[in-house]
């Protein structure tokens, strides 16, 4: 187990190295720089600023500096917001994104699994059709359209929830729902088909032949086996929620990390791009590791060991 963890953490570090390097190359390859804007700076000043931020150093030196900073998780000051450290920006905006993301993941998982189970238990009956209509709608409507529909119905027409910003729990509902819709629908479909398959498995017949009632058979025997595909979807789910948050935070005017990231890219705010990218990557890689650990915990057939192919 310890060996397995070490090995996985090693892989995470290697992945991070590549992510950081590729981000660096992309940033350098894109035309323009942080101080290029419509209002042209006098060349002397631009030159001086580039000097101050080390942008005139040879490329390999800049790259080495980036790497060292990344290892220390110290990305220096923002290029755009004077006096603000990248780490400050992250720690200021992170809580918003975290709350929103966790809320969306919770919604997607709980309601998605529930819908899927209901659909499977009512296979080819009314409950199944309703659940699957919801699922198909959820998958086919993109989150930004969902967001505007939700805003229109619940904030503007019904005046039931705030339309934007982030000040109370009520503010989080619409963006979390918008963010959760697509993964929720996907999970519902995944859960339905997996549950249908499991309900036809031989061991379900064995369980019934012991005299267990349907509820026990469903919850004790079917659910745990049927949930496996959903657990393996947790990795992509986190990715989806993360990337989804970029656009949703923008639409709802939430000063979260996703919003910061988008702004930093448009601003060519190199240090902030780097900081958020590294942060997002760590988050993703760690959550994928956690998912694998959960998977190994739920499915006894999967051995978490340092040896072997996995």
């Amino acid at each position, binding site marked *: 187990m310890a060996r397995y963890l070490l090995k996985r953490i090693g892989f995470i570090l290697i992945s991070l190295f590549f992510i950081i390097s590729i981000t660096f190359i992309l940033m350098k390859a894109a035309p323009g720089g942080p101080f290029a804007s419509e209002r042209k700076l006098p060349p002397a000043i631009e030159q001086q600023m580039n000097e101050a931020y080390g942008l005139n150093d040879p490329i390999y030196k800049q790259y080495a500096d980036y790497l060292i900073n990344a290892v220390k998780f110290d990305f220096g000051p923002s290029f755009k917001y004077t006096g603000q450290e990248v780490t400050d920006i992250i720690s200021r905006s992170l809580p918003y994104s975290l709350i929103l993301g966790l809320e969306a993941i919770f919604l997607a998982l709980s309601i998605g699994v529930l819908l899927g189970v209901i659909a499977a238990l009512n296979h080819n009956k009314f409950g199944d059709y309703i659940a699957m209509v919801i699922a198909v709608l959820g998958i086919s409507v993109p989150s930004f359209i969902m967001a505007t529909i939700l805003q229109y119905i619940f904030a503007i027409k019904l005046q039931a929830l705030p339309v934007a910003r982030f000040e109370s729990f009520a503010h989080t509902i619409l963006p979390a729902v918008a963010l959760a819709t697509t993964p929720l629908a996907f999970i519902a479909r995944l859960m339905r088909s997996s549950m249908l398959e499991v309900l036809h*498995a031989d061991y379900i017949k*064995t369980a019934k*032949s*012991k*005299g267990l009632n349907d509820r026990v058979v469903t919850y004790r025997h079917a659910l745990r086996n049927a949930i496996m595909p959903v657990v393996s979807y947790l990795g992509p789910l986190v990715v989806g929620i993360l990337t989804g948050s970029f656009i949703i935070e923008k639409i709802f005017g939430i000063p979260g990390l996703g919003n910061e990231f988008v702004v930093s890219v448009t601003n060519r705010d190199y240090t902030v791009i780097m900081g958020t990218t590294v942060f997002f990557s760590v988050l993703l890689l760690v959550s994928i590791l956690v998912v694998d650990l959960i998977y190994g915990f739920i499915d*006894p057939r999967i051995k978490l060991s340092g040896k072997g192919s996995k």
Partner: protein
Amino acid sequence: MKKLLEVKDLSISFDTYGAEVQAVRNISFHLDEKETLAIVGESGSGKSVTAQSLMRLVPMPPGKFVGGSIIFDGEDITQKSEKQMESIRGKDISMIFQDPMTSLNPTMTVGKQIAEGLIKHQNLSKKAAHDRGVELLKLVGIPNPEARIKQYPHQYSGGMRQRAMIAIALACNPKILIADEPTTALDVTIQAQILDLMRELQDKTGTAIILITHDLGVVANAASRVAVMYGGKIVETGTVDEIFYNPKHPYTWGLLGSMPKLDAEGEELQAIPGSPPDLADPPKGCPFVTRCPYAMKVCEQHMPDYKELSSTQKTACWLLDERAPDVEPPESAIVGGTEVHG
């Protein structure tokens, strides 16, 4: 002998797209206390559906009871509520299935899977159920049961899983054990071990067994009586001796002919030519008519009645009618004395 179970005119169908698959048609048989009845027939002849209907495990829908009764303990199983069935399943009637690799829950320890039935039917505590589980694993010949009981099915070999399944099925001392092709998925050497184990446990516990198989070879040593099933019908029943030495139905002859013989080395196995009837549109008369080398006009139109050849043997075949020509069983269906009791 007391009759433990009596099936009368049982018919079960499946509603599939546009057609009614008549999987089981008007079958009748009984099971005595402490005996082993074998139900033999090619795949698709309705054996599993018959077995599962005894425990009301046929999925309904698409399945449905068309008619008949299953009398157990003086009461008709087909009339019981689901709740009543729950207290019969696992307690009075248990079942083991063909594929031990898929019939145990992969995410639950073997111990828990054994304990479930005990906790449900005998009100045992978790601890007591665990201890009884260890005993049961020992009983079915699993070495080191204290450690094995904590393991998951994937840590067991195929033969051991079937042993564990037997432990689960016998946990509450059922009156009837239904074994649906319990050895089909196993290696030949392990097959014999499992059959021996079942016989040994039957001697100890007195459980009556319904042994379902497509392999007559399995039957000789394991059963006392045989029901031969074809196309959803029982075409012949009798004691093992009657079926092996005095078979009267051409389908039984075919099955005997397709059985490997010890005293006829090198001889070709004779599979019955042709394929079983489509149960969505079964023949009006005898289901075997399309493959029977002795088929007559009457066979196409009318199902023959059972002819009682002895108090134990009954055969449904027009050849037994006094107007029919005399037909002798083919050479391949004649069983030498050696392997049946060998």
